[in-house]
């Protein structure tokens, strides 16, 4: 979403309401908390919540709710071209008669007094900010009842172009943040694909999926499920005609089940607390099953164990090709409330091995993004080259995004992976 919002005179209010129907903040860009805000600091079991109406159950003075919007660099300006933004708060009181809340715009604090239970537009203040994401923090100061107030949106007036999530039907996705991908073109009749993934220390945020070996039909990578649990996850979709993917075999300790949500298929994972900073090696394999389907298998190598570990083999029926195609990697966050956290990973040393045994190094990747990125609902994404490897980065509302839909080429290593494919375990 990209709109150019100008300070409007009163006569223009009617037109402004027409393009900004979410609240009565005429003339302002209406940055709905439902799609752009997160509880970024709170005590355990805090009551505050972001719903489709915005911030609710605001009871604790220690809870911080952060909302982001992006000020675009002007065409004829520098990277950090400053712009004046005038911020307002669309809020109502419930459960209190009066309250004072602190609104900090990129760190500049303003105390705003709320009164009455009618939704109002409260003026906050004007701050000159550099181009990029602007963070608006809300924190309670005082109240004479149980609640500080319900806040539905932040109003922003500026001459600069703004970007923020403005599609209510996709707020869930915009709160998760943009997913970014690396597409690899592999030779025909690719049987094996090899990739190496390193998650830098501190980038292994909860809710991250560092997907290494994706293909038409499935994907394989590593996830952070909770503070204490991480997975190596290998999933294969059901056939396009709806026929079910079935498990052929799996490694020790691997859990298998079906999955749904964004599709259906077979899922297998190993609880394995992989370590940020280590480089993990991934191999996927496609083999015709002789009955019109394809068996897909997955292995990973952890430096801390020093051995290849088998995840599973899944039989996907009715496939049109029994080789790996559509090979890619991606980076995503799958927990919407954690969408404000930044993550990144390096992807290096990609190789494809044909069914005749020839290794081909894959040195070019196509950097793409999902609809959240493509529609500028979120612009905190990047990809490219870093230390001679590809990298992906998303979340965290960093300002220097890298445009999607471009290709990057890494230096070739020239040395095929040192792995004995015939010795890969099957249990």
């Amino acid at each position: 979403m990209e709109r150019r919002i100008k300070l409007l005179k009163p006569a223009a209010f009617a037109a402004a309401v027409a393009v900004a129907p979410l609240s009565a903040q005429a003339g302002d860009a209406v940055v709905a908390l439902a799609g752009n805000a997160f509880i970024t600091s709170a005590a355990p079991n805090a009551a505050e919540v972001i719903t489709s109406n915005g911030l609710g159950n605001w009871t604790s003075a220690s809870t911080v709710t952060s909302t982001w919007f992006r000020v675009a660099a002007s065409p004829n300006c520098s990277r950090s071209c400053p712009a004046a933004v005038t911020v307002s708060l669309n809020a109502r009181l419930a459960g209190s008669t009066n309250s004072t809340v602190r609104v900090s715009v990129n760190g500049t604090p303003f105390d705003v007094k709320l009164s009455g239970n009618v939704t109002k537009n409260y003026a906050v203040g004007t701050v000159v900010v550099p181009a990029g994401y602007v963070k608006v923090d809300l924190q309670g100061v005082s109240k004479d009842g149980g609640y500080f107030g319900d806040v539905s949106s932040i109003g922003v007036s500026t001459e600069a172009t703004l970007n923020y999530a403005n599609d209510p039907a996709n707020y869930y996705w915009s709160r998760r943040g943009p997913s970014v991908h690396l597409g690899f073109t592999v030779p025909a009749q690719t049987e094996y694909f090899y990739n190496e993934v390193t998650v830098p220390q501190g980038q292994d945020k909860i809710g991250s999926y560092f997907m290494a070996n994706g293909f038409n039909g499935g994907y394989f990578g590593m996830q952070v499920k909770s503070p204490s649990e991480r997975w190596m996850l290998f999933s294969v979709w059901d056939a396009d005609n709806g026929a079910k993917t079935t498990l052929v075999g799996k490694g020790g300790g691997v859990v298998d089940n079906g999955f749904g949500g964004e599709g259906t298929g077979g899922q297998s994972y190993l609880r394995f607390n992989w370590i940020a900073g280590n480089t993990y090696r991934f191999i996927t394999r496609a083999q015709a099953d002789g009955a019109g389907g394809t068996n897909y298998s997955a292995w990973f190598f952890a430096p801390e164990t020093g051995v290849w570990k088998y995840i599973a083999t899944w039989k996907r029926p009715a496939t049109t090709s029994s080789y790996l195609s559509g090979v890619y990697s991606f980076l995503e966050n799958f927990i919407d409330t954690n969408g404000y956290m930044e993550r990144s990973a390096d992807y290096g040393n990609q190789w494809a091995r044909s069914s005749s045994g020839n290794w081909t190094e894959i040195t070019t990747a196509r950097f793409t993004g999902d609809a959240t990125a493509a529609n500028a609902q979120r612009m905190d994404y990047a990809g490219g080259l870093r230390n001679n490897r590809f990298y992906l980065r998303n979340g965290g509302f960093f300002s220097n995004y890298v445009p999607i839909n471009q290709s990057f080429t890494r230096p070739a290593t020239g040395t095929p992976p040192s792995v004995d494919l015939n010795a890969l375990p099957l249990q």
Partner: protein
Amino acid sequence: MLKSLSCALLLACAGAAQANVIEGFDDVASLAARGFILRNASTPAGSNAFFQGNSRVFGAHDGATGAYLGANYQSAAAGGVIDDWLISPVFSTSTGGTISFYVRAAADPGFLDSFQYGLSAGGTDAGDFVLGALAAVPAGDWTRYSLGFAGTGTAGSIGRFAIRYTGPADSANYIGIDTLSVQLPEPASLALLGLGLAGAAVSRRRARRA
């Protein structure tokens, strides 16, 4: 700060000369009408090239706050290479002289702007210019550069001066160019050929910013 590159390009230094301010970039839109060439040869080309200076980034070296020539990373598309050329109108090179100008870059951490400058014998193609070494545009304050050239001793010989803004777009930021002048020996009015310079040959004095 003065960074003189006099005698560069194997040309001898000019003697004392009267300054004839050619351009203060009060009106970038009219540069072409006054004989300047603004060329964006960036690959792939971006969304803009040279433009009137933006006082939100920094003020002009001299004159009104936006009275300078600006250019930025958007000269080339993301991932591309900037190749912006400011080429002066022709001037006489029958006798020696000195060209000077001021440049400045916006100071944003992690970004670097680069430029070159040099002379041609009147040609306007990139290959016609003998350029000096690639240098970083100083950030933080306006910096003066100068280039001396020897006269050819041939009546009617002409030259052009060019400033080339270049470098990877992804690491570039924003530059300004201001107060481009040619200093020629007296009588200056005879040295200037006036091909597009007739109006610009009138000296213009502006209050220098502190």
